[in-house]
């Protein structure tokens, strides 16, 4: 099966609509960032405390907000947000602002206390099974089981406890047991254990899935380091491409990649997504992907420069883009498929990551054709106009020299 056989589209002739679209997208991104008063950074860069809490039913947001505003133990503003993603329906995020390290730790503890006071039974003297650890559950059950005439050897007890908590933590429970009778189907759990559990534990209607606390020193440093490393990496790539091709190719590739990153960040602002450390990893992935895509096209242009010396550069570039079109569509399409799968089924941890890649791969693919190639073309037309000579040939001569087996490659 071949979908793109000997195509002959005039890609470079249609560059303007795409360049304008790129400019509009970039501007829209910038406008959105301005309107929102800067990018929304995740806790990695912003600092503060953040707690992800899962409820067994639709979380009573107002009640939670009130509980936190009444408590008065937490310094700074408290935000309570729910997720819109259907996979994370019953989850909320509770965040507090950045304060000094000691206060952050205090805030974190206060958050747990407020939740326990509003939804748990802290005064009952029972253990919350939905937040119990292995050690605490085992030590709670040991004596009651012996008293109830169900004595167990220590390894046996440890195994039952581990099994119960494992059962609690695997999907579809995902950390929340709503009824003790759910446990009766587990091997090794008998009526005696269930009644001991009922006597010693209660089931809070929530569980804390994740707690993060980032102090003031960490955020800024992480961000600066990541940005700096990326800039150095771009410079390194520019140098290598300039060495293998011509400097304008390096510059064009780096500008195109930069363009992709800018647009993706803009889209993050437009869709109100948070920039976290994971997003930085996704942006690095997109830089690598887009660079790869651009080099494949440039490589074909370099090759054609040697065999089609008389063709005008624009015709030659069009031909190169058409020759590589099949591979561009296939590679981009397949990578896109993978990333879309991650976006749909990957869950909240992979959500922003795959969002960045879905945007990035789309933008990265067309930027190779409609941004990187036109830059090289503009530059050559500009220098040609000035010198009325043929630097294209000079370029071809140079790449000839840098390639070891031209006779084999060109037939």
């Amino acid at each position, binding site marked *: 099966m071949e979908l793109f056989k000997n195509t002959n589209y005039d890609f470079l002739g249609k560059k303007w609509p795409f360049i304008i679209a790129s400019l509009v997208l970039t501007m829209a991104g910038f406008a959105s960032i301005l309107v929102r008063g800067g990018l929304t950074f995740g806790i990695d860069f912003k600092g503060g405390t953040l707690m992800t809490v899962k409820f067994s039913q639709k979380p009573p947001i107002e009640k939670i907000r009130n509980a936190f505003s009444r408590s008065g133990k937490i310094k700074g503003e408290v935000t309570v947000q729910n997720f819109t993603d259907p996979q994370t329906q019953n989850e909320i995020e509770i965040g507090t602002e950045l304060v000094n390290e000691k206060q952050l730790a205090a805030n974190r503890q206060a958050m747990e206390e407020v939740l326990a006071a509003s939804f748990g039974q802290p005064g009952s003297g029972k253990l919350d099974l939905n937040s119990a650890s292995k050690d605490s559950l085992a030590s709670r059950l040991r004596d009651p089981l012996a008293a109830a005439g169900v004595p167990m050897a220590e390894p046996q007890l440890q195994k039952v406890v581990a099994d119960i908590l494992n059962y609690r933590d695997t999907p579809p429970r995902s950390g929340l047991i709503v009824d003790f009778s759910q446990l009766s189907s587990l091997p090794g759990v008998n009526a005696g254990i269930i009644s001991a559990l009922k006597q010693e534990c209660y089931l809070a209607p929530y569980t804390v*899935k994740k707690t993060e606390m980032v102090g003031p020193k960490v955020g800024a440093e992480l961000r600066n380091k990541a940005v700096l490393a990326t800039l150095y990496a771009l410079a390194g790539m520019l140098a290598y491409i300039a060495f293998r091709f011509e400097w304008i190719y390096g510059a064009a590739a780096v500008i195109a990649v930069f363009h992709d990153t800018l647009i993706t960040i803009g889209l993050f602002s437009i869709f109100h997504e948070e920039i976290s450390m994971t997003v930085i990893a996704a942006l690095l992935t997109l830089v690598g992907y887009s*660079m790869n895509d651009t080099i494949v096209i440039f490589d074909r242009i370099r090759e054609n420069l040697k065999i089609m010396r008389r063709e005008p550069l624009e015709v030659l570039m069009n031909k190169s883009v058409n020759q590589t079109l099949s591979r561009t569509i296939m*590679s981009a399409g*397949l*990578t896109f498929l993978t990333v879309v799968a991650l976006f749909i089924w990957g869950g909240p941890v992979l959500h922003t990551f795959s969002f960045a*890649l879905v945007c990035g791969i789309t933008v990265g693919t067309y930027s190779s054709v409609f941004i990187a190639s036109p830059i090289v073309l503009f530059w050559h037309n500009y220098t040609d106009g000035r010198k009325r000579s043929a630097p294209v040939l000079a370029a071809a001569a140079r790449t000839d020299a840098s390639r070891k087996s031209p006779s084999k490659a060109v037939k």
Partner: protein
Amino acid sequence: MKNNLTARTVIIVVTILVCVFGIIDFPKSRAELVKNFNDNIRLGLDLKGGTHLVLEIQVQDAVKADADQSAERLKDDLKKQNVAWNSMDVPDVAHVEDAENVAITIKGIPATQSSAFRGLVSERFSNYILTALNSTDYSMKLKPTDLNELKVDTVKRAVDTIGNRIDQLGLAEKSVQQYGKAGSKFEVLVQLPGVDDPARAKELIGTAAVLEICDVKEGPFPSKEGALAQKGGILPLGTRLVRSKPRGAQDGEQWYLVMKTPVITGRDMRNARPGQDEFRKWETNFSLSQDGGRRFGRYTEANIGNKLAVVLDSQIVSVATIQSKIEDSGRITGLGSEEEGVDLSRYLRSGSLPAGVIYNEERSIGPSLGADSIHQGIVAGLAGLLAVVAVMLVYYKRAGVNAVLALGLNTIILLAAVSYFHAVLTLPGIAGIILTIGMAVDSNVLIFERIREELRTGKSVIAAVDNGFSKAWWTIVDTHVTTVVSCAFLFLFGEGPVRGFAVTLVIGLIANVFTAVFVSKTIFDYELAGRRQLTELSI
């Protein structure tokens, strides 16, 4: 040509075997296979759940402690030499960055004795720099090289101490390491995979920051204000008020007035363990280092009947009365419960951190989130992979099998690398793997499209395959080298997750050149060997 093919096959088979061994060893059963796989391919905290802490060691504490000790020594020496002085103190500093500003200020040295004073300092305190503030006042600071050594050493000792304390959690895998560049950053990274009780881990590391045994002057008082009021609003020189750690919610506040300078610190503590006395009451037995024992002996001999407080991170965990002279071993009796005895001995034994800590970062990912992430990650990853395989097979038919084999081998090599390098798979690492798989697909597509182009020009199948590979080769080199160059920079200048991304990507790229070019070409050659007249290729 035939020999060459055999040699290449051997290389490929050996690589596969080595990689598979790295991932699953030699399993004898299904259960063992799963176990080996889980042991070798370790997931990061972000996927598996667990606790991640970044602590900053307050190195200025250690510098200050060193200056305090030197000041005491200097006082002794000055007394011996009959040099007079008015005051000598070491002002507190609050931040790590101010560690270099720690200085001993000495005031009121008579001008006539200044040369004797200078001589003494340069002879006995050669690691300090003395600056004259005016004719009678001086300031002493640690030399920069000694200061740096002290800071680095402090962090190293903190890493050891924290490691020892974490050991008490009995974890199979844990990691405590210096974070960032030694000498410029004073952070320690603690990773506790699968810990379902982060509060306990923190309690073990955090609450027991600095252990001191101090002389109790007065107490207990019911509140800080009450204590201050009783003292007329001013505390006696060299003392401080310390609160005792509440045992339960019903306990009221208790405050003690203790001496600021401890008799001994956790550094002098050798060992401690819980025990029971003749009346089956719980106690804690401890032993001290030689030097600490000597000091403690001298002190306890002179202060029988007085009280001593065990102060942990500025909280009293225990107050005991000195009943006799204690030299290198003693016991703290009259504890309430076994738990109390165990806890106290653990605090004493785990030694004192050389400086306080603050938490710059803390993340605890619950086990259920970890389980969810893995579940969703696997579903999504498989769905993506299946889609890619299906499209490759439909679009490139027989040649698509090559690509799928190459992709599979690529994944195996990557996993083996994770296992052999004892790396952990984190989310950014998986980002690297996705880019690798993207580029692996791309390399295959590049080659196949080239072969199709060559076939279209009417070349023979063998010539088309050879040309396709050799023409695509330079494109593959350029794309891969560019990415490796960028990874080198990311690794040099990045930190943490960015580095993890770079490392996985480089390994993946090397694997990719091997599988997409070397392995795929070998499979083609097998197919074409001895069939020179072949006119059609399933591609």
